């Protein structure tokens, strides 16, 4: 309960900071609206500001906004002519699809590569893992995306260039699903590359430690085949810290998603954020900032709960 109250206070502080920042900057969305109209005189701009309550004193606008947020209302986007909550909910599935699939790929291959290479620390594969993880750490993610795009969408046209779906595909659920999956492959690999680096590295380290531990020796002593020991016993053990680490990546995942979405025109929250920043669509920007902080806070709470449930060794490791 205390943690919940604390989380709410944190969110309130986030709102205050964001709201204040947005109001310190010159210009407002009335200018953007006038752009979509082909021009407007000062009189009309004043009218637009009045229509949307932009002429009110700062404290009144802030009060209205905070009041709205606590009723689940993030305001109304002038630019999209839609409520911010519905805008975010509309774009959320695309981002979730991208982020979750990328995380699953990164976790699966990260742990697998880590486990394999841990058995032969000086083997070829181990060096490959080192290289992959260094690449993931050092290559700008948007560049990775563009390289994949050049390689697999332009040179060999295996995957579509951009977007999440071919709007013109008519057909049942499966036709649509296959279409989306084809669009998903490259952005997913791109985003996964950052985290694959992180996870394979950690998985290898924990795996190496685990393989030296008593229970593995016992398993070998019992005469279990290597494959069973490594992939069933040891790997399950090595999973835990990696999963925990994954739980702490919410903020990083979102940052990565912004860039990956920009490269592939993926119609998710990152694209929405970028577009609304360029248009200075204040309610949408505030809404997305608030929403991402909310996700991080809730994510941390959940990770924390998992941490507490796990053994004390992990708890002290992650301090």
């Amino acid at each position, binding site marked *: 309960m205390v943690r919940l109250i604390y989380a709410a206070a944190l969110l309130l502080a986030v709102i205050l900071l964001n709201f204040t920042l947005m109001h310190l900057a010159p210009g407002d969305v009335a200018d953007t609206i006038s752009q979509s109209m082909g021009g407007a005189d000062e009189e009309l701009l004043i009218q637009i500001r009045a229509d949307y309550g932009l002429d009110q004193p700062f404290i009144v606008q802030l009060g209205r906004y905070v009041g709205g947020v606590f009723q689940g209302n993030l305001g109304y986007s002038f630019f999209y002519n839609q409520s911010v909550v519905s805008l975010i909910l509309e774009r959320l599935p695309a981002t979730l699809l991208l982020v979750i699939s990328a995380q699953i790929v990164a976790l699966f291959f990260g742990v697998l590569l880590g486990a394999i290479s841990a058995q032969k620390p000086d083997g070829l594969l181990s060096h490959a893992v080192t290289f992959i993880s260094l690449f993931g750490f050092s290559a700008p993610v948007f560049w990775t995306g563009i390289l994949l795009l050049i390689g697999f969408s332009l040179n060999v046209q295996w995957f579509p260039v951009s977007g999440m779906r071919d709007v013109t595909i008519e057909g049942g659920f499966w036709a649509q699903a296959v279409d989306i999956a084809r669009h998903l492959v490259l952005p997913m690999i791109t985003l996964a590359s950052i985290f694959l680096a992180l996870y394979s590295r950690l998985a290898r380290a924990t795996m190496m430690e685990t393989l030296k531990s008593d229970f593995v020796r016992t398993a070998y002593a019992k005469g279990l085949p290597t494959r069973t020991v490594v992939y069933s016993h040891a790997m399950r053990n090595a999973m835990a810290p990696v999963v925990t680490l994954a739980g702490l990546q919410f903020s990083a995942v979102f940052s990565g998603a912004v860039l990956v979405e*920009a490269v592939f025109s993926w119609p998710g929250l990152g694209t929405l954020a970028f577009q609304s920043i360029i248009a200075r669509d204040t309610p949408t920007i505030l809404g997305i900032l608030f929403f991402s902080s909310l996700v991080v806070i809730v994510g941390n709470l959940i990770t924390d709960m998992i941490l507490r449930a796990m053994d004390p060794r992990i708890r002290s490791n992650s301090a």
Partner: protein
Amino acid sequence: MSDLDPATAQPSRSPFREAWANFLTNRAAILGLAVLTLIVFGAIFGPVLYGTDPYEMVWAPFSPPGEAGFLLGTDYLGRDLLAMLLSGARVSLLVGLAAALVSIFIGVTIGALAGYYRGIVDEMLMRFTEFFQVLPTLLFSMVLVALFGASLAMITFAIGVVSWTAVARITRTEFMRLREMEFVLASRALGATNRRLMFGVILPNAIPPIIVQSALMVGSAILFEAGLSFLGLTDPNVVSWGQIIGSNRQYILDAGYTVTVPGLAIFITVLSISLVGDGLNDALNPKLRRR
């Protein structure tokens, strides 16, 4: 672990010399350092030695690498990509370094105060740190730069202000551990002021993990800057690597090299920084363990 006497734990040359010796045994780290030195050299002297103005349209647009004497070819305006790359190195390294310094400054200050004073100060500063941890880093920087102008100073600040929390936590942990050490207690008994204890006595001993973290910070700040300028949130008067990629991106069909080459530059730079950082980590760790 805590059986050190004040004399040997005081900052001295020898642990660092030892670390350097360790570092030299790490081939990857040496390679990283060599490449990094080359890149820094190129950034400082390259533009002067090469002489071509990165903004001048010197040749036909999209001249492929190697043709007409342009080693890396020309971009969509016919500007020399090699000149742009050399000039961009300055910006990328400078912003990376400066942003890392900003975040280290904030992080060390907050971490030191929290770890030293503990109690209510620690509580409040850690809440403050958590506040920054829940901000979506890239998005928040994008908003800052979009709202308040894309000058290099603003970009540096925008990166630094969202990246310091890890440094603060590491510093705090070190300070908490060190402040109970005998040499600190001894200095305190001798009447050292809080400030002297924090920055004169404890900080020098807390430096190794901070150094490792700082090296990694520079790399990630370079990536961060590249991401911002890729999105167009950059000072249009200076060439930066990310910006070259961002503005040439729509021409990848015509001239893929305008995107691949600057990306490779970022990759190699950050890679060598990571290698050096890893090397430092390995080199400084044995000492940490012995302590």
